[in-house]
């Protein structure tokens, strides 16, 4: 086995979960940035949210351009901050309303990535699952790689242990990744609208209708994503302000105690 385990920093996990929970209508995806140590443990320090290149709601694929761009970002942004070389070490995607286990397409996609990099890992976040009897909601996440099946030319999945590593504070790169989500959603919508609006054969009524659709869709994003994200950031700030006051008092108390000893 090329990889023995995956250690996912909790702030990177937070970004993945926020992304997965942003929509139940389609699968979302992103890339994992980190490093691999000598014990073949993959350390994921941050993630990059991606736009879906295939707009089919049940398929996710990463374009070569996205991979290249992510690799560049890993090199410059995260490596610069940590002082260690960082690279793309895996990918994640969501399974809204469906089982956490990878489909045969997912396993094949993973196998393809492993041809480039044996240590490449796949994460899946299954969400919006509800037990109708007990009204209990459920979120699951799994980590896997692919191996050639013993019989035939197909691939099968192998389980990779994953541990979420505590990270008390949210890192700068993860925060910036988190606020990328509304920007990416807006960009997707603007690109779609621009293509439609440029069609010359549309009459004014159709254009006004499409403008309203764009307005409605953007309002949905602002309400469901941007607004909630801004609320969460403001709550974090408030919580941190209280923590800072308490920690400063504790620091003064300990300093005085040390001085009197």
């Amino acid at each position: 086995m090329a990889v023995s385990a995956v250690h996912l920093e909790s702030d990177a996990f937070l970004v993945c979960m926020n992304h997965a929970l942003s929509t139940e209508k389609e699968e979302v995806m992103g890339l994992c940035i980190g490093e691999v140590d000598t014990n073949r443990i993959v350390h994921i320090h941050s993630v990059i949210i991606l736009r879906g290149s295939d707009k089919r709601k049940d398929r996710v694929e990463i374009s070569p351009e996205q991979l290249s761009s992510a690799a560049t970002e890993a090199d410059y942004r995260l490596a610069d901050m940590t002082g260690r070389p960082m690279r793309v070490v895996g990918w994640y995607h969501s399974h809204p309303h469906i089982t956490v286990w990878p489909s045969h397409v997912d396993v094949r996609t993973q196998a393809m990535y492993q041809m480039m990099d044996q240590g490449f890992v796949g994460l899946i976040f299954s969400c919006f699952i509800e037990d109708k009897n007990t009204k209990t909601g459920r979120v699951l996440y799994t980590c896997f790689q692919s191996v050639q099946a013993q019989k035939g030319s197909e691939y099968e999945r192998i389980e990779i242990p994953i541990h979420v590593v505590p990270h008390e504070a949210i890192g700068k790169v993860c925060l910036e990744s988190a606020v990328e989500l509304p920007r990416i959603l807006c960009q997707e919508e603007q690109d779609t609208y621009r293509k439609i609006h440029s069609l010359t054969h549309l009459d004014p009524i159709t254009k006004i209708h499409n403008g309203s659709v764009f307005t409605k869709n953007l309002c949905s994003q602002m309400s469901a994503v941007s607004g909630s994200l801004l609320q969460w950031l403001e709550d974090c700030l408030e919580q941190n302000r209280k923590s800072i006051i308490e920690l400063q008092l504790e620091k003064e108390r300990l300093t005085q105690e040390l001085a009197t000893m």
Partner: protein
Amino acid sequence: MEDSNSYIRVSGFVLGSLMFQHLNSDSDVEGLILGETKAEERSNITDSQIDNIQFEHTINIQKHISCRKLNSFYNRIGEVNQDEIRHILSNYKEENVIGWYKQRRNTDQQITFREQVVHENLKRALSNHELIFLLLTPSEITTSGSTHKLEYAVFRSHGSQYCSVPVLVSNLGLLEEQDYWRLSASCSSVNYNHAVRKHRSKFFSSDGSLHEVDEINDMNNSLQGELKIACKKVEESERLVEKLLADVSDLRRMVNDRKQELGEISADGASTPAQPQENVLLCEVIKTLFPGASLLQTQALNFQGFPLPEFCCSTDHGIDIATTLPLILSHTLPKARKGRLGRGGGTSWRKRPLRESSEVPKRRKGMLEETEESLSVSGSETEEDLIPANQNGNDLDVSNSPVF
């Protein structure tokens, strides 16, 4: 006919934030939930019913406030401390509290009895009968540790019953997305086109873009700007919190190290390891009152809390109890020999002598009861009156204390 439906709505960011908090903690976590409640009445008229009223009760979870430690706003019997709640809430108002939450690993997704007690007391303290309890229970579902799950449910009490309320995670998918039209309907009416052209300028700017689209794009850009500012502020505060946590951790370590250094140095300056002092007076009294009762004389307990008889003090401290503590002996049997009490029990309440420490757990309660009984027997009866000589089979020619 009336129907009532209740729902809990929570954003994915709040749910993610709750998970993040628990992942960074090695124990259970709990806190308060703030939000608002909305009720809506809808009237439906169908072919079969003229009056079908539906009540929709939606509870929106807007944020959570975590408690620094467990059991902070309630005590061991579940009584709620309102002062502590106000302290936790800080600038937030009590009326915004719609519930509380708890996260515990590898446990059942069921509200425990203690949580129920706390919940009822919190309802009374906050005067909120619609108070909710959000329970999150993460666990591993594969032995390899490759797959994990988090279950979450909201409970609300109706009398003595607790029922769960459906939870909806707000997301983009809940909002209907309309499709763009790629083709226009064909209409050759002259008057239709005339009417459209007449009002066209109200919708379109000179470059052909729609006013509405420009306005909403501007609004969205402002919102993105606010997000960037908030992100920067949060990032700065996170770095400060990180630094303070590291400073406090270093200071705590230095204080502990210093305390250890000071603890190892005694008053005369000599370096002596700290040793617990033996209470020699107590040791001698127990030997006097209960000779041979190694379970009472032992100074060591095992991890289960049961006495280990092999750790008795065998040192003769040279203290004469009759002289030092005469009052203790004045309550014992009058013909007790010097320094020793006799066996204080009749055959009716005598137990088998304890042979092995492994028997201790089963008989501990009985032993304690007998101890109390033996001490209460005094005055009128002597040991010789109670037990015929040598009937106990004991080879010693001195009387023994009650056998346990």
